[in-house]
C-alpha cells in the first residue's frame, strides 16, 4: 500500500508539471499581451517593453517554463507586476472562498444524493423511483449558471430572502452568502450521486454474500447499513475524486454570477487581462488540488478494495 501510494504521489506531481507546461505552451501563442491589456490605452511603448521584461515574457518559452518551476520549488509563484503583490498572496486570498463553496456544495449534495439513491434502490421500479430518477437526471446537466441565475432571481431579487452578491463577512453573514451559490453548484450533483448510489446498491443487493446475509435472517435495515452502503458509497467517492474538476468549472460560473471572490473569478479575469503569472499561479493551484483529490479518492478506494490497486 505504501509503495502504491508513493508511486501514485510521484505520478501526480508529474501530471501537474505536464499540465502546467501544456498550459504555458498554449498561453504563449494566445493573442493579446498583458502589458497592453493592463497598462491601458495610454502606456508608452517603453513602459510596455519594461513590463514585458519584468514579467519575463521576453525570454524563450522553455526558459520561462523552467524558471517558473524553479521558483515554485522555492515556494514562489512570482509577482504580479501590475499591483506589485505576490501571486501566491493573490491566489491564496481567493482560494478559501472557492474551497468552502465547493466543500459545502459537495456536502449537502452527497447527503441528499446518498439518501435519495438508497431510497430509490430499495424502492426500485416503483413510480417513486422513476420520479426521483427523472428529477435527479433532469438536474444533472442544467448548466450551473442557469441554476445560479434562477436562484438569484427568485430568492435574492424577487423574494429578497438571501443576498445576491459577494461573500459576506463574519460567520453568519458568510453562511447566508453561501446558500444560493452552493445550491446552484450542488443541485446537479444530487442527481449524479443518487444515480450512482442507486446503481451500485442494486448491484450489491443482488450479490451472493448479501443474499446469504438475507437468508440468515438479518433485517433489511442492518444489511443496508452493514454491507451495502459501505460498498455502494465507493463509486460515489471515485466520482467525487474525478468530479472536483467539474466542481471547479461550475465554481467559475457561479462566482461570476454572484460576483463572489474566488479562484474561478480570478482565472476568468486574469485570462481576460492576459495576466500570465496569475493565470499560471491560479491554474497550478487548482490543478494541484484536482490531482490531489483524485489521488485521495483513488487511495481511499484502494484502501477499501485492494483489487483496485493493480489498476494504476
Amino acid at each position, binding site marked *: 500500500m505504501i509503495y502504491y501510494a508513493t508511486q501514485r504521489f510521484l*505520478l501526480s506531481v*508529474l*501530471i*501537474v508539471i*505536464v*499540465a502546467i507546461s*501544456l*498550459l504555458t505552451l*498554449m*498561453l504563449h*501563442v*494566445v*493573442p*493579446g499581451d498583458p502589458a497592453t491589456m493592463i497598462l491601458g490605452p495610454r502606456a508608452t511603448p517603453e513602459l510596455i517593453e519594461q513590463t514585458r521584461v519584468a514579467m519575463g515574457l521576453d525570454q524563450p518559452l522553455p526558459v520561462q517554463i523552467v524558471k517558473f518551476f524553479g521558483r515554485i520549488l522555492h515556494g514562489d509563484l512570482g509577482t504580479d507586476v501590475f499591483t506589485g503583490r505576490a501571486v501566491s498572496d493573490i491566489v491564496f486570498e481567493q482560494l478559501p472562498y472557492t474551497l468552502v463553496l465547493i466543500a459545502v456544495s459537495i456536502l449537502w449534495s452527497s447527503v441528499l444524493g446518498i439518501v435519495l439513491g438508497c431510497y430509490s434502490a430499495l424502492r426500485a421500479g416503483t413510480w417513486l423511483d*422513476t420520479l426521483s*430518477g*427523472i428529477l435527479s*437526471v*433532469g438536474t*444533472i*446537466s*442544467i*448548466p450551473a*449558471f*442557469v441554476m445560479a*441565475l*434562477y436562484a438569484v*432571481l427568485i430568492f435574492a431579487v424577487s423574494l429578497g430572502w438571501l443576498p445576491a452578491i459577494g461573500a459576506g463577512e463574519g460567520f453568519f453573514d458568510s453562511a447566508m452568502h453561501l446558500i444560493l451559490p452552493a445550491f446552484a453548484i450542488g443541485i446537479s450533483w444530487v442527481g449524479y450521486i443518487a*444515480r450512482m448510489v442507486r*446503481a*451500485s446498491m442494486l*448491484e450489491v443487493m443482488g450479490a451472493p454474500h448479501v443474499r446469504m446475509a438475507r437468508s440468515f435472517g438479518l433485517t433489511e435495515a442492518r444489511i443496508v447499513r452493514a454491507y451495502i452502503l459501505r460498498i455502494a458509497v465507493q*463509486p460515489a467517492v471515485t466520482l467525487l475524486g*474525478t468530479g472536483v*474538476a*467539474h466542481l*471547479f*468549472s461550475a465554481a*467559475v*460560473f457561479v462566482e*461570476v454570477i454572484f460576483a463572489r471572490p474566488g479562484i*474561478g473569478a480570478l*482565472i*476568468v479575469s486574469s*485570462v481576460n487581462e492576459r495576466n500570465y503569472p496569475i493565470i499560471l499561479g491560479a*491554474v497550478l493551484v*487548482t*490543478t494541484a488540488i*484536482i*490531482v490531489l483529490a*483524485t489521488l485521495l479518492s483513488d487511495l481511499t478506494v484502494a484502501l477499501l478494495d485492494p483489487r483496485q490497486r493493480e*489498476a494504476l
Partner: protein
Amino acid sequence: MSQAQATVSLPEPTVISRILRGLAGNRTGTIGFVLVVLILAAAIFAPWISQYDPAAIMTGPRMAPPSSDHWLGTDNLGRDLFSRVLAGGRVAMLVAGASLGAALSLGLVLGLVAGLGPRWLDNLLLLLFDALRSFPTIVFGLAVVTLVGPSLFTVILVVAITSVPIYARIIRTQAQSLRNAEFVMAERAMGAGLPRILFVHVLPNVLGPLLILASMDVPLVIATEAGLSFLGMGVRPPTSSWGVILNDGYNFIRNSPWPVIAGSVPIVLVTLGFTFLGEALRDIFDPRLQKAN
C-alpha cells in the same frame, strides 16, 4: 473490466430486437428513447417545422412573449425563438456528433496505441491524459478559445480534446486485458498479425460499450457548449445555439423570462433523453459497464 465480454457487434436484427424488447420493459428507457427520437427528428426537420429563418431579425416585436405567431416568443433582435431553439438543436447535435465522433476515434487510436504499444509510450500517453483531465474543462476551454477564436469548430475542438482521455483510458484497459487473454495469445502464437487481432477481437468488444458511454456524454457536451457561450466564447453570431439563447436571455432577463426558459428546457430534455436511453442500453448489454466509467 475484464468481465465485459458480452460481444456487442453492431446492428444485427437480433440486436435491434433485443434493444427494443429491453426498452419496452424499462419505463425510463422508453421515456429516453422517445425523447431522443423526438429531439433528433426536430433537429433534422428543423427548417420544415418552423416558418421563420432563425437568423432573420425583426420578424416581430422584440422580446415578445409566446403567441400564435411566435410559439416561444422572440429574442432581443426580434428573431423567432422557436425556430432558434430548433436551429440550436441542430447545432447541439452537430457539436455532440462531431466532437464525440472525433473524441471516440482519437481515443480509440490512442487507447489502442497505449494498450498494445510499448510500455514507455503507454506511460507517456497516460500522463498526457491525466494532465488534460486535471484542468477544469472551462479553464481549458478559455485557453483554447482565446487561442483560436470562438466558433462552432472551436467548441467541437474543446469538447473533443477534453473527452479523448476518458475514451482512450477505457480502450486502453480493454485492449490490455484482451492482449493477455488466452485466446488472443493463442492466435498470436498461431501467427495472427496485430491488425487481425485488433479488428476481430478488440474493436467489436469495445465499440458497443463506448457508443453507449458516448451517448450518455451528449448532455455534458451540450452543457459545455452552453457554458462557453455564456462566457461569450461560443458559436459565431448569428448562428443560434441553446447556449447563445441562454446567454442572451440571461442578459435580458428583466425584459422577458422566455428566452432563458426556451434555452434551458431543451437542455434538460436532452439530458433526460440521452441519459435514460444510455442507462437502459447499458443495462441491456452489460450491467457491469458502469464500473469502467
